[in-house]
């Protein structure tokens, strides 16, 4: 992206002597070099030494710096003491600058200030894992509440649906008799969308079908379907 067409690029060139080993031939023959193994112990990157076995978030302050607080400490109290120490040390620094600016005390004082600031940041960083766990806890609580809410609402909907089905069944006319051939001749039922009447038709037709089958008139059923097809086509 830094170069336009074939202009001067600010990126370093790819390592051709490495890339050229990955030809298709080599891969097929299995002679391409394997990926580098993960590094187990310390390594240097851009001049900084990284330790692979660090205690991720909180490496000990004993690596190189003096420790100013006792071993079992209250974070907040130590933070406040550090805060006040910073301001007091600044006053001392100003005094030194006023009286004798070029003395070695000045550098000492500045080192003290540096150390104090590093301590403050270290203590703040020690709170971070705590914060991460709290965030996780809050997220899980929210998730649990959402799940329970959804289950509750779904259950309510189910209840509503069941209730409505019940009322539908109850509103069916209770006088369905199996003497349905008679009923068909006298009451041409038109198919409607009302569930109760269609289920009435269902039960009537089921009775009719049973009677037809009992009388052994199965061969009339295909012709009935033919009739139906004719009706539909005539209706078009």
């Amino acid at each position, binding site marked *: 992206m830094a170069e336009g067409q074939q202009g001067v690029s600010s990126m370093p060139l790819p390592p051709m002597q490495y890339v050229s080993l990955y030809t298709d031939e080599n891969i097929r023959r299995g002679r391409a070099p394997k990926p580098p193994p993960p590094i187990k112990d310390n390594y240097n990157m851009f001049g900084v030494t990284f330790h692979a076995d660090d205690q991720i978030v909180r490496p000990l302050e004993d690596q190189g710096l003096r420790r100013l607080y006792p071993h079992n400490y209250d974070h907040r109290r130590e933070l406040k003491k550090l805060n006040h120490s910073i301001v007091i040390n600044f006053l001392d620094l100003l005094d030194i600058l006023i009286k004798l600016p070029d003395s070695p005390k000045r550098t000492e004082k500045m080192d003290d200030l540096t150390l104090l600031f590093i301590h403050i*940041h270290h203590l703040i960083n020690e709170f971070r894992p705590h*914060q991460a766990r709290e965030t996780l*806890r809050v997220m*899980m609580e929210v998730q649990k509440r959402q*799940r329970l809410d959804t289950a509750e609402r*779904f259950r309510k909907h189910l209840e509503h649906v069941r209730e409505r089905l019940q009322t539908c069944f109850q509103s069916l006319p209770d006088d369905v008799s199996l003497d349905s051939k008679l009923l068909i001749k006298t009451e041409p039922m038109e*198919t409607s969308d009302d569930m109760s009447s269609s289920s009435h038709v269902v039960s009537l037709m089921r009775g009719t079908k049973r009677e037809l089958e009992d009388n052994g008139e199965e061969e009339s*059923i295909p012709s009935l379907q033919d009739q139906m097809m004719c*009706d539909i086509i005539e209706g078009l």
Partner: protein
Amino acid sequence: MADRLTQLQDCVNQLADHLCNAVGILQQFAPSGSFTGFEKTASKQPAVTNEENAALFAQLIARTAKDIDVLIDSLPNEDSSPELQLASLCRLEEENQEAARQLEEVVQQGETLLTQIQQALHDIAQTQLDSQALQSAQL
């Protein structure tokens, strides 16, 4: 609005900035000291008087330090130790799984009901077709 730890870090950095700036500005704009006996150059007044500058910086530094104190106070104390947190995390995990199981159960019930209704509707449509056929056979 960043979280408390980030705010605290920003305040601490701001305090460091104020300290450096205070020393730098006061030193830069200080009128040159007069040697006794050399009265040649008249001392010119700085644009903004140094007392105001000094007072301003002192106020800023004090205010930032106070802010840091307040923020430190707002941090949680050591009661919720890591063990407690881990225990509550485990408990929440179990409760979450329980809630998931309930949700799944309810959804299962809903699905069976749905298939039943679909079956009933299918039957109704089928017999409607058959009734149409019988009707046309009657006519």
